[in-house]
């Protein structure tokens, strides 16, 4: 994937919260958590086999992050910026189109 879909949000969070502290600890930027790239937690990463995929969307449905999107053709897209590598998608995939492999960074 080329660019994070949250690029603008991340920039806004970085800018605004460095300048302001609200009384009552109000957090006023929704989804400001996207600044945390939780993909760095990952030990195993999901590897996706497009040929096997039946587009049942179970991986998308069960992703707790969520870090799985769906592309124009209906296939899952994995956002490795946020995927923590829990492996639920691989475990729930009924056709083994997702396998967990050790992270090699």
């Amino acid at each position, binding site marked *: 994937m080329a660019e994070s879909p949250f690029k603008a949000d991340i920039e806004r969070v970085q800018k605004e919260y460095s300048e302001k*502290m609200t*009384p*009552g*600890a*109000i*957090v*006023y*930027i*929704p989804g400001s958590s996207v600044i945390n790239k939780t993909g760095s937690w990952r030990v195993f990463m999901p590897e996706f086999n497009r040929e096997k995929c039946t587009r049942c969307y179970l991986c998308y449905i069960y992703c707790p992050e969520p870090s799985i999107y769906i592309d124009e053709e209906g296939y899952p897209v994995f956002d490795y910026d946020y995927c923590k590598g829990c492996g639920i998608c691989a475990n729930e995939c009924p056709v083994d189109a997702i396998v967990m492999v050790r992270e090699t960074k």
Partner: protein
Amino acid sequence: MEYKPIRKVVSGNYAAAYAALHSRVQVVAAYPITPQTSIIEKIAEFIANGETDIQYVPVESEHSAMAACIGASATGARAFTATSAQGLALMHEMLHWASGARLPIVMVDVNRAMAPPWSVWDDQTDSLAQRDTGWMQFYAENNQEVYDGVIMAFKVAETVNLPAMVIESAFILSHTYDVVEMIPQELVDEFLPPRKPLYDLADFEREPFSVGSLATPADYYEFRYKIQKAMEEAKKVIKEVGREFGERFGRDYSQMIETYRTDDADFVFMGMGSLMGTVKQAVDILRQEGYKVGAAKVRWFRPFPKEELYELAKNVDGIAVLDRNYSFGMEGILFTEAKGALYNTDAKPLMKNYIVGLGGRDFTVNDVRKIAENMNAVIEKGELDVEVDWYHLKR
């Protein structure tokens, strides 16, 4: 509209209930406890009679009373509750929550002694034990001040976004009837416009937001500082609101410490709440007898009026601090505060603490006279006999 007061003979508790009504409170969440109960009974009566559409939440504890007020206030409503002693102690956790979330809830606390042994009578230790919760505290001397205090408290609280407690004495005020001059509704409305909340959980036009999230050591400190700044701001606001109240309705509250015949006084009695009514009466008598004494009634205990105390203290030889409360292992709580506030100044009056009226024990004009005699002797000698005098103790 010209101000013509509506005179009613009411108890302190009814004065509080009328003040809540006239402040156009929207949500009341409360739990019964003696001697507070007649406040919420009266409010329920207003609702039953169709005088108001207050949402009344009959919660299952005081802890939930404050939690429900917090939920309501965070959702933009003007919220009110009332309690006493054990109930206030149970609320303690949520008192911090209200100030931390910057919610201008107003609560009447009817001062009652903490158990055991059980007591339902007057004692300030319950409210003073909440000193560090970030609530403003206003101590009323009489039923009129209960009524005025609640209305002013809303205005001050909603200006600085901090909660405020209006405190009255068990039975001495709560159940004692007196004439109270009430303000016609339209004039209260002019003085206290609808609330403009800092945030509103029912606001879906703005972007989604959250309140009260975890703050790490990198940020928590600043949020505390903001509360302190709001408390400092509150001092100014209290004086302005008190002055405006006086201009509109004839009763001036611009002094956070009300001084009574202190100008040429050798020494003054300082205290809070209903006992100061007794003291003022005693001052008049003592003056006739030749004592040069005055009274200093601390109206607002939080924020603490340090500057006003200094102005008073630098011109007197002594201050007799009357505490209807106690901090075990130390002394009367107002005494500690007053001494502390003066320590870094050049005002060094002799200060003596008299522990009076705990658990509702009678405190009379005659008691003030005895204290005056003792205080006079102390000042003449130039040194304290004892610093903390358990004045009523059966010996």
